[in-house]
C-alpha cells in the first residue's frame, strides 16, 4: 500500500500539482471563490460553503471557461490532460556525503525549497512556479508504533505486527528512507533522451543543492524545539 500508493511517483506529482495549483490560484491568480474556499474563518457560513464542494466541483469550476487563464487553471488542465510534471531529481540522504549538508538539505526549510526551485528554473529556463521541490518521507510501521508495539495474535502467541507481516517486514527498511524530489514541466523526445537528461539533471541538481547548502541564510529558520517537525 505504502510503496504502491502513498509513495508512488505519479501520486506524489499529482498531489504536489494540486497543492501548487490551488496555492497559486489564490496567491497569484487572485481567484476570490478559491480564496474563500481555503481560508477557514471559523464561521458557520464557511462550513456550509465548504460542504457544498467536492473534488469534481472544484475541478469543473477551475476548468470552466469563465475561470480566467492562470496557474490554477493551467495545473488542473495539465492534470485533466495527464500532462504531468516529471520527476527530474530524486536524492537520498546518502547522495550527500557531508553530514552538515545532508542535515541542511533534509531539514528542507521553505526558504531552501523556494531557492532551489528558483535555481532549477533559472538553469533550465522553466517557469519557477512550475518547478516543485519537496521532501518525501514516510514513517515505517515500526516508527508508527512509538514506544509500544502493535501486537497481533498468532497461534503460537502474541507477536509484533512488523515482524509478523511478511509485507511490512520486507519493506520496512526501504520506506524508512527519505528523498528530496524536484518536479518540472519537462518533455522528452524519446527514451534515450529521457535517460540521458535524467542523468544530467541528477548530477547538475546535486551540485545546485550543495551550492545552496553553503549559503547559510537559506537555511535560517526561527523554529523552536517542538515546533512541529
Amino acid at each position, binding site marked *: 500500500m505504502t510503496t504502491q500508493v502513498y509513495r508512488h511517483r505519479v501520486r506524489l506529482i499529482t498531489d504536489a500539482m494540486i497543492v501548487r495549483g490551488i496555492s497559486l490560484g489564490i496567491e497569484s491568480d487572485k481567484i476570490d471563490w478559491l480564496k474563500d474556499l481555503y481560508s477557514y474563518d471559523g464561521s458557520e457560513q464557511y462550513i456550509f460553503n465548504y460542504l457544498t464542494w467536492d473534488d469534481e466541483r472544484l475541478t469543473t469550476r477551475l476548468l470552466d471557461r469563465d475561470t480566467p487563464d492562470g496557474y490554477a487553471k493551467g495545473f488542473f488542465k495539465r492534470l485533466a490532460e495527464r500532462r504531468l510534471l516529471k520527476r527530474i531529481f530524486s536524492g537520498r540522504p546518502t547522495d550527500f556525503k557531508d*553530514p552538515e549538508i545532508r*542535515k541542511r538539505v*533534509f*531539514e528542507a526549510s521553505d526558504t531552501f525549497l523556494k531557492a532551489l526551485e528558483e535555481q532549477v528554473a533559472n538553469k533550465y529556463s522553466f517557469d519557477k512556479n512550475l518547478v516543485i521541490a519537496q521532501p518525501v*518521507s514516510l514513517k515505517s510501521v515500526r516508527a508508527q508504533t512509538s*514506544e*509500544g508495539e502493535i501486537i497481533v495474535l498468532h497461534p503460537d502467541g502474541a507477536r509484533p505486527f512488523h515482524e509478523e507481516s511478511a509485507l511490512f517486514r520486507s519493506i520496512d527498511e526501504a520506506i524508512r528512507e527519505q528523498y528530496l524530489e524536484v518536479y518540472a514541466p519537462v518533455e522528452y523526445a524519446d527514451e534515450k533522451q529521457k535517460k540521458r537528461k535524467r542523468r544530467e539533471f541528477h548530477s547538475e541538481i546535486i551540485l545546485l543543492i550543495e551550492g545552496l547548502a553553503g549559503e547559510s541564510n537559506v537555511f535560517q529558520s526561527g523554529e523552536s*524545539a*517542538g515546533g512541529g517537525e
Partner: protein
Amino acid sequence: MNTTDFVILLVEAAGGSIQGRTVLQKRAFFVSVLSDLKLDFRAHYYGPFSPSIDAAVSQLKSLGFIDERTIGFGSIGTLGLEVKRYDYVLTDDGQKIAGSLKKRKKEEYGKIVNSLKRIEKAGNPNYSELSIAAKAFFILTQKAKPMARTEIMREAQSFDWRIDDSSLQRTVSFLEKLGLVNKS
C-alpha cells in the same frame, strides 16, 4: 532550536548514547521541563510522549546521524513477547553534527547538560521509575493543584496508567529533589 537539534544534543549530553526508547522520551520530558524548552508532550502508553521527538529520532536515523540498536534480553514479557530494548547511539556523522551544534548552540546545550546532571543527582532512576515520575508530574501539571498520592493514582487510571503507591512514593522523592514538587 528545532527538535532534531534537541535530540542530537540530548544524546550527546548523555554521553553519546541513550539506552531505551522510554528513557529517551522521559529524559527529554524532564530536560524540557527543567530547561523550559517547549516540546509537545501528551499522554501515551508509558507516560508523557512527544511525537516531535519520535519524528526527530526517525529523521536522524534516516539521515544516518543516530543508530538504533535492538538489544534482546532472551526473556519473555507479560504479553508473551521477547523483552527488547532500543538503544540510540550517535554515529560518526552524528558526532560531527553534535560537535558543530555544541559550538553554535552553547546556551541550549549548557541547559541540557545541567538538566541531565540534576536528574542524575536526584537519583537517576531507571526507565520504570522515570516513567512513573513523568506520569505523576504530568498529572500534577495538568491538574495544576496540590494532590495527594491517592488522587494522583486515581487520576492516572483515566490515562490507563497503573501506578502503585510504593513506586509513587519513591518517585515523589525524585521529583522533590529536582525541585519540581513540594511535599506538605
